[in-house]
């Protein structure tokens, strides 16, 4: 399954809505989009309403972006998390690291 990304910027806040799956094949697409936008972003909001499958390839992208944002005093928020993704975040301990609504 492919991954569709829609992004919306308001000043320094970037919201990316994910539709599909973040897996080995699609994670580079997410990485490319966010990497290009991070220099102008202080708050990154990732909306998972349309995506409940995030493999470790996707987690690596999230952890990497989180570290970059935190270093410059920014923040990352994950919203509309589904059941499967919540389990993955819980097992890896990332649920206590990322801001989750």
């Amino acid at each position, binding site marked *: *399954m492919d991954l569709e990304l829609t992004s919306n910027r308001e000043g320094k806040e970037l919201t990316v809505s994910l539709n599909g799956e973040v*897996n*080995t*094949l699609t994670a580079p697409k997410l990485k490319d989009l966010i990497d290009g936008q991070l220099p102008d972003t202080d708050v990154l909001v990732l909306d998972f309403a349309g995506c409940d*499958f995030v*493999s*470790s*390839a996707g*987690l*690596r992208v999230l*952890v*990497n972006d*989180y*570290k970059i944002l*935190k270093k410059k005093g920014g923040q990352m928020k994950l919203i509309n998390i589904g059941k*499967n993704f919540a389990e*993955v975040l819980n*097992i*890896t*301990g*990332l649920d206590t*690291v990322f801001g989750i609504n």
Partner: protein
Amino acid sequence: MKEIHVDSKIENIPEVMDFVRAELEALGCSEQVKAQFKMAVDELFGNICLYAYGEGTGPVTVSVGLEGDPPAAVVAFCDSGSPYNPLEADLPDIGLDIEDRPVGGLGIFLIREMMDSMSYEYKDGCNVLKLTRLNG
């Protein structure tokens, strides 16, 4: 055990996922079990594609079936690339502050946590990685 034979190319991940999902479905596995094996295919088949045959590609067999009593779902990955035991990989310390954690290493940790057991053997020139998960 039902088997699928594919080349170690990441473009084949969806085909392997579909095969594993259909077989687990036929075995009566729950949605959670199917979702967990899907993660496992992405991680483990993905790793075989990226590393087992160096820069090249080679054959991979993925098999699905039931074993044991009570019966547990089993998915096995077999490749004839370089001998590599992923169970010997360093596990991330998830208690560490995120700043001190390596970005990688999470995948194999995740799969181990989700499965009931994982075993590895190098047999007849093949890496055989077997995952077992009770239905529930």
